[in-house]
């Protein structure tokens, strides 16, 4: 559950009852994963389309760091294949 205050997005994690503030990029990643779980390559492609940016190693590295952070905050989890991620509890 989330709400946007201008360029800050507040997310309430119904599984943990924790509240987080995300920037628009992080929120878009979470939103994309809510639509459909994705591995790093798929996610980079979809984010590239969303923000009209080139998909390259730099973007993938940025996404990998972000996914680790989101995972540490219990906002996402790995799917059973171990490669894809999805929002926790979805």
């Amino acid at each position, binding site marked *: 559950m*989330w*709400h*946007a*205050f*201008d360029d800050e997005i*507040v997310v309430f994690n119904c599984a943990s*009852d924790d*509240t987080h*503030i995300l920037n628009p990029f992080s929120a878009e990643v979470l939103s994309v994963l809510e639509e459909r779980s994705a591995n790093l390559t798929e996610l980079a492609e979809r984010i590239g389309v969303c923000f009209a940016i080139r998909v390259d190693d730099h973007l993938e590295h940025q996404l990998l760091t972000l996914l680790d952070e989101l995972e540490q905050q219990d906002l996402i989890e790995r799917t059973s294949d171990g490669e894809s991620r999805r929002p926790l509890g979805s």
Partner: protein
Amino acid sequence: MARVGDLSDRELASALRKGSLRIRTGPFVTGIRSPLGAIAEGLRALYGDFPTEAPGRFVDFRVHLAPVGGIRRWLGRQVVFRCNGRRPYLPFPRRLAMPLFEWGWNWCVYTHAHRYLVIHAAVVARGERALLLPAPTGSGKSTLCAGLVQRGWRLLGDDLALLRPEDGAFVPIPRPISLKNDSIQVIRRFAPAATMGPAWPDTRKGTITHLRPPADSVARAGQAAGPSWVVFPQFRAGSRGRLVPHSKAQSLLRLATNAFNYSLLGATGFQSLVRLIEASECYEFEYEDLGHAVELLDKMAASSVPLSPLPLVASSSES
């Protein structure tokens, strides 16, 4: 309906001994039983304008303040607080019976009143527009709240703010304002005519006293107010006083950590805060001089137009 102040000393003491005294504080009715003269004196001094309820009415909090017997009485004259049969604190020195009642009553609210989001904050109102002052202990929140109500703001609560999820309004619980140490003299100078109860030195918080809530605020305890401003106050020596706009997302997060039952309410708590923040201007506020602080907040209130509140809870956030 009789007010506490309408009862004679004998009637008040008798009702307290029998446990038949019922005081209405906003949406709550508290039944009080105590043989202690200090409780009768404290209630008369601070709760004189509060309405009583007839025995037999539903009681939310059944409070009992009793002298401690048994072996503990050798530790000095002590008093114990119970609410609905539970005892949240160890016994206190009997001279602190009235402060214990105040602390205990707060405990009753934040451990029971889960139909509301209970925020650790003062709330005052201009007309039907509420100003929320969330802050930890020691930040000058109660001093500022006392100053504002002495200059015409309506008191909705000093230490606890009740946010009603159904409509996003603050439900008043106007009660005595707790003042500590230097704040006592600040308010005496700022409002010499203000009525204060007895002062209790040498508590764990230093010297404390209570400011009697304005009679008008007590009489209008049934009138909720919609949120308009969220101001995080901080007393700072040397500050010239300034209101700085504060991020709405950060404001929400700070309120979430200041609410007693945010996690317990889950999504309802989150949606209530989203709605509150959307309807409010948010500021951080440093101040030193109380008079100047009140002027600044008066100007803020006079110059702002209401923001559109969000519709009801179900659609207040994207999900």
